[in-house]
């Protein structure tokens, strides 16, 4: 029984997912009760995950072990999902079919939480698919809109192909090492065939994170999908994705000589394509897609360094990226996807406008917000590993990124065209509370970077 306690958070998520799915059976009427249950469930999972904390006990024959990195990722995923569902509860009317959305979100989050603890190739594959399948449905959520379905299909086809490439690689990894557990892989000597298998495996993970040149699905998927699903898909699964990448690279990195160069090239490619493509975008969802590609580029740069500090920094930055980008998508979902919809936001909703500013500044990396400390921490690790020029490039790009992020700010603050008809706000307090929580998290993640790092189990210098 003792070992089931370890995966209690995931079980709670599963239970609340099922409850949310059959919420109409419950005596309580109201459309958004599912979202409330989901939010409460996710919050409970967060508390339990933190309470249980890291342990060395392995489950299911050493396939699952939650060290401090995994605990942080689980807690972050659960927390973000809880905030997401809270916002969903607030915005139920405009979203429609909240029960399905809540269930999908919870299942995807559960998959992601398990993935962060996966120690075995098989479990890695299973949890990865568990995390992405609901994402396909979320992207294609609005059955009536063929753009959403088209986006979902593209996402589906591309991720299927890349997953199969990963599987093919994993098969050969298993072949050569005789075992599928990550610790086992560490031992075997890799010939040139092993190099290829390793690269193929990495490709699957990189595609999930939408790193260039495997990012092609994300701009179309995000542009087609409704904004609220992009909010979830573009932020929560990525945290667990980064943790998985850290695990795999941690294992394969030392044995595969060229792997760090691959990571480096992919990182630089992501930064270049992500930042340049984001300029001149009129649709905020597509802009955030490309910004996602750019930020994954920064993450991969830290991982390319190959140091433990680099991986810790990458995970911290994944959270520091997820929180503001999800919150931005919340505001976009409430206001409308294009820049013109954002015009005159300050006059209509001053609090939302200022919150939007803080989130964008965190993404640019302006201190004292979370983005800055994440980047500072990550890039000092990368610099330490000797990647001088890529880091200068990364900093230069984050400065350039101010150009396109400020496009949103300029229309929100300086745009004169308040929307003609004041649409009766379908939101209630809950949505604003969710955005406020994100705002608090973005600022505190910056100021309290110290405690955050100690939670990550990083030995105090």
């Amino acid at each position: 029984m003792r070992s089931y306690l370890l995966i209690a958070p995931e079980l709670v998520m599963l239970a609340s997912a099922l409850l949310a799915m059959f919420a109409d059976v419950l005596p309580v009427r109201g459309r958004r009760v599912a979202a409330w249950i989901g939010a409460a469930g996710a919050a409970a999972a967060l508390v339990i995950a933190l309470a249980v904390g890291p342990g060395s006990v392995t489950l299911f024959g050493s396939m699952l072990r939650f060290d401090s990195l995994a605990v942080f990722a689980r807690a972050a995923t659960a927390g973000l999902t809880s905030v997401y569902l809270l916002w969903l509860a607030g915005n139920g009317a405009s979203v429609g079919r909240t029960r399905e959305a809540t269930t999908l979100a919870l299942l995807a989050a559960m998959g992601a939480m398990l993935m962060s603890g996966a120690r075995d190739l098989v479990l890695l594959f299973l949890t990865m698919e568990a995390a992405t399948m609901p994402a396909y449905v979320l992207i294609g959520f609005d059955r009536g809109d063929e753009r959403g379905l088209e986006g979902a299909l593209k996402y589906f086809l591309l991720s299927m192909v890349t997953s199969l490439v990963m599987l093919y690689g994993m098969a050969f990894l298993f072949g050569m090492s005789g075992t599928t557990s990550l610790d086992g892989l560490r031992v075997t000597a890799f010939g040139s065939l092993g190099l290829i298998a390793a690269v193929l495996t990495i490709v699957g993970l990189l595609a999930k994170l939408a790193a260039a040149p495997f990012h092609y699905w994300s701009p179309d998927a995000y542009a087609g999908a409704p904004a609220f699903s992009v909010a979830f898909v573009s932020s929560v699964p990525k945290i667990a994705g980064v943790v998985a990448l850290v695990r795999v690279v941690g294992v394969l990195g030392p044995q595969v000589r060229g792997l760090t160069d691959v990571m480096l090239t992919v990182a630089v490619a992501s930064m270049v394509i992500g930042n340049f493509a984001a300029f001149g975008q009129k649709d905020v969802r597509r802009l955030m897609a490309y910004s996602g590609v750019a930020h994954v580029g920064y993450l991969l740069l830290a991982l390319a360094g190959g140091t433990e500090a680099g991986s810790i920094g990458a995970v911290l930055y994944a959270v520091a990226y997820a929180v503001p980008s999800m919150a931005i998508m919340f505001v976009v979902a409430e206001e409308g996807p294009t820049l013109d919809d954002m015009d005159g936001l300050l006059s209509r909703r001053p609090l939302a406008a200022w919150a939007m500013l803080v989130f964008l500044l965190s993404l640019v990396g302006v201190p004292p917000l979370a983005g800055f400390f994440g980047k500072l921490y990550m890039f000092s690790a990368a610099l330490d590993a000797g990647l001088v020029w890529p880091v200068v490039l990364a900093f230069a790009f984050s400065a350039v990124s101010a150009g396109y992020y400020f496009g949103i700010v300029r229309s929100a603050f300086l745009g004169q065209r308040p929307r003609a008809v004041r649409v009766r706000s379908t939101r209630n307090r809950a949505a604003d509370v969710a955005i406020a929580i994100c705002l608090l998290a973005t600022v505190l993640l910056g100021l309290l970077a110290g405690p955050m790092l100690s939670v990550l189990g990083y030995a105090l210098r």
Partner: protein
Amino acid sequence: MSYLLTTIVFLPLAAAVICAMLPKDLAGAAKWVAATVMAFDVTLVGWLLATFDVRGGVQAVVDIPWVPQIAIRYHLGADGISLAMLALSALLGLIAVVASWKMDKSPGTYFVMLMLLQVGMNGVFVALDLVLFYVFWELVLVPMYFLIAMWGGERRSYASLKFFLYTLAGSVFMLVGIIALYLYSGPNNTFDIAELVRASAGGAFNGIQGWLFLAFFLGFAVKVPIWPLHTWLPDAHVEAPTAASVLLAGVLLKMGTYGFIRIALPILPVAAKAWAPWIAALAVISIVYGASVAFAQTDVKKLIAYSSVSHMGFVMLGIASGTAAGLDGAVAVMVSHGLVTGLLFLMVGMVYERTHTRQIAELSGLSSQVPAIGGILAFASFASLGLPGLSGFVGEFLSLLGSWQSTLVPHWMTVVAAVGVMLAAAYMLWMVQRVVLGEASEAVSRISDITAREVAYVLPLIGLTVLVGVYWNSLLRFVDPAVQGIVTILARVV
């Protein structure tokens, strides 16, 4: 562990929060909140000035760990130079609030921005940890961007984004420099300036001082501004509202030069000495270039903006010289430029409020129609062209002495700088000639003279300009001991 500096720096933040909380109809009260908080801030700084022991080096220190994992400390402290700049920043902040008393366009947000700007400005001069310094450095950018973008003139969106991107691009290099310092700072890495100075003396950065200095140079040079990185300044000044351009010219420009004095010189003395002739050359170009271009301006505010480029050229000349007189002169120009150019911008703001034009061609005969405004504008112009007996002369004269005395700066550069002083007289007097003297032009003929409120916020600047001009030690008493420390570091390096 004194909490004085923390209160001084973060008091305006409290004001900002209060102003933000004010409901729409009470927005008018924002200015009172800002004024009282800034007044209290200035008194605190005054008290610090009074109890400051000139020989005591860095005082009022607070030093607690912030992000222990990578040795970032919340470390504040003030020595003579920082105190002088802090006093300037607090005083100009208070004056800026009083000067924007009649701000009617969404005043609540305006004063929130002004107070956030004040936090950044106060903080940057007392931060002794590089990351904390960088945090305050960047913190200033966003409020100033909004002050220009939302309350500026016609081309405000162009000017504000240009200002933001120029400085941000510069600060990117600075951040890389800071991280490189952190990594190369010997066994236990640190961001703390004092420890970095000791590490540098111990030879920690010997190989790469050149590259590090380049990184910091780019970051600071954009802010100073040094020719050719100056083109953002005239646009930002012309489009910014009066109070914003007073703070921009009075305090923000000094963050760049303060960076050189506090960080670049002490931590990278070898590179500073190697680069000195080049910096002096750029400084001299800035002086003559700024003066010449100012001579051709048709817009008064642009003229004053280019004059700032010229004055900051003197600061860089003083810094490049590396001598006690040069550095004293540099800090003196920083303080006096803050007072004098702040006064100039306030007067031009008054004229603009009344005549709604800044074109020199349309303005003339101020002294016959509004003698008080004309007189003060003339007084400020004479202080700006470096008339002895007023603060402008002190800094420029000491910079010239320092650069002649220094072995790093070729003598012909000091001669060109001295000619630059004469050129300053040319464009300033040419402006006074056409704007203050002569018959009252049509735009000027019906305006009213200075009001009591305006006199109230102009008087302290006039008083200080005369005080520093007549009794130099009123400023140098604080600045000189701090400068001696830096000169000894530079002297130790061959």
